[in-house]
C-alpha cells in the first residue's frame, strides 16, 4: 500500500461495507477503492455477501413464532419438548407437501433428480474417492485391460456415452472403473494412477437437472481436493489427495479430452 493511503485499513473496508463510516471518511475510502481495483472488488463481494445472507435468512424472522418458543419466553419453561416437536414436524410436513403441490412438477423434479447443489455433487465425488482410491486389493470393478467392456457397461448404466480420457501426458494411466451408487441412481468412477502409485479419480454423472452450468470449481472434503464442472446434464469431478494446482493441471487436460 502506498504511503498516500497509509491511513486506510481493513477496518475501513468493513465499515465501508456495513455503512458505518461518517461521510468524510466514507468519501476517503471510496476514493481509495476507486484507485485500487482488487480492494474494490473485495468490498463489492463483501456487500453481496451481506445481501445474500439477508435474502437467504430474512424469511425465517417473518415466520410465525413456534408456540413453544413464545411459552419459553413467557415462562422460561415449556411443556415436554418432544410433544411440540412432534406436532411441529407434522405441521412442517403438511406445509412441505402443500408447497410441493403448489410448486408443481418442476421443483419436484429438481428435488428428485440430481444432487441438491453443485457442492453436493463434489461431495459425492470426494466420498467415492475416499472409499475406493486407497483400496489396494479391489480399487476397480473392471480393469483397464477390458476397456471396451468397461466403457460399454458404464455408458449403459449411467445412460450416456462415456469415454476414458487419456491422461498419459500428465503421467497418469487408467487402471479401470466402477459404478458408484448415488441417491438418484448410478454414477461412474474412473481411476488413474501415476508411476509413484498416486491415484486420482474421475467421477461422472449424466442425470443432473442443474439449472446452470458450472465452470471449474474447487472443493475440499477432508483431505481430498476436487475440481469439478457441470455441463448440462453431465457432471465431471476430478478428485485427488494431491495439491490443488497439480490437480488443476490434470483437470485442464481432462477437460480438453472429454471436450463435452
Amino acid at each position: 500500500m502506498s504511503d498516500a493511503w497509509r491511513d486506510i485499513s481493513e477496518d475501513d473496508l468493513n465499515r465501508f461495507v456495513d455503512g458505518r463510516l461518517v461521510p468524510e471518511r466514507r468519501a476517503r475510502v471510496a476514493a481509495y477503492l476507486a484507485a485500487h481495483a482488487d480492494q474494490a472488488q473485495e468490498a463489492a463481494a463483501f456487500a453481496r455477501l451481506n445481501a445474500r445472507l439477508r435474502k437467504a435468512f430474512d424469511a425465517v424472522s417473518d415466520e410465525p413464532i413456534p408456540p413453544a418458543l413464545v411459552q419459553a419466553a413467557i415462562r422460561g419453561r415449556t411443556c415436554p419438548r418432544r410433544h411440540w416437536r412432534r406436532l411441529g414436524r407434522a405441521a412442517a410436513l403438511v406445509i412441505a407437501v402443500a408447497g410441493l403441490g403448489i410448486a408443481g412438477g418442476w421443483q419436484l423434479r429438481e428435488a428428485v433428480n440430481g444432487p441438491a447443489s453443485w457442492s453436493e455433487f463434489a461431495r459425492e465425488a470426494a466420498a467415492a474417492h475416499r472409499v475406493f482410491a486407497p483400496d489396494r486389493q479391489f480399487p476397480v470393478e473392471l480393469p483397464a485391460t477390458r476397456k471396451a467392456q468397461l466403457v460399454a457397461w458404464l455408458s449403459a448404466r449411467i445412460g450416456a456415452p462415456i469415454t476414458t480420457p487419456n491422461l498419459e501426458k500428465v503421467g497418469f494411466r487408467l487402471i479401470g472403473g466402477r459404478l458408484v451408487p448415488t441417491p438418484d441412481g448410478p454414477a461412474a468412477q474412473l481411476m488413474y494412477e501415476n508411476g509413484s502409485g498416486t491415484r486420482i479419480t474421475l467421477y461422472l454423472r449424466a442425470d443432473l437437472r442443474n439449472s446452470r452450468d458450472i465452470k471449474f470449481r474447487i472443493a475440499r472434503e477432508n483431505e481430498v481436493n476436487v475440481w469439478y464442472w457441470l455441463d448440462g446434464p453431465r457432471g465431471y469431478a476430478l478428485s485427488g489427495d494431491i495439491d490443488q494446482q497439480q490437480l488443476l493441471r490434470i483437470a485442464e487436460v481432462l477437460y480438453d479430452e472429454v471436450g463435452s
Partner: protein
Amino acid sequence: MAQMIEQIPSLRRYARALVGDRSRADDLVQDCLERAWSRAHLFRPGEDVRVWLFTILHNLHVSSIRRRRRQPRLVPLVDGAPDPAMREGQESAAEMADLAWALEQLPPDQCSAVLLVGLEDMTYRQAAAVLGIPVGTLMSRLYRGRQRLRALIEGEVSVHLKRAK
C-alpha cells in the same frame, strides 16, 4: 417479558444461519430463552436485552459444538422436501444449500462475526460484546471470515480453458 418475545424472530434467524437445520436451530433458541429465565437475576437493568440474549445463545452454541466434536458427525446430505420457509424471490434450494455449506466451512468464531454484523446488523460493539471479545478482534475475525466465505462461494477460478477442437 415482552422484550424477549420481540427478539425471538431475530434469534431464530441467526440460529438458522448458524446451525442450518430448522429444528436444531429452534431447539437452540428454546434453550436460550429457558437459560435466560434461569439467569434473569443476573440481568442488570439498562443492559441491552438483545446483546444479552444473543450472548446466551452464542455460549450455548459454542458448548454444543464442543460436545458434537467428540461424536462422529452425521450430516444429512439432501433434505428432500424444500424448506417451508421457501418462497418467491428467495434463494433457490440449491443456492441455500450452497450458502449453508459455505457457512458450515467457516471457523465458528468467524462465522458468528459475519452473521451478527452482516445478517443481524449489529454494531461492532454489540457483536464484540456477544462474542466476549475486544472490538479490534471482532473486526479482524469479520474481515477474515468474509474473505473466506467469499472464496468458498465464488470458488470458481477464472482459468482460461482452451478447448481442443
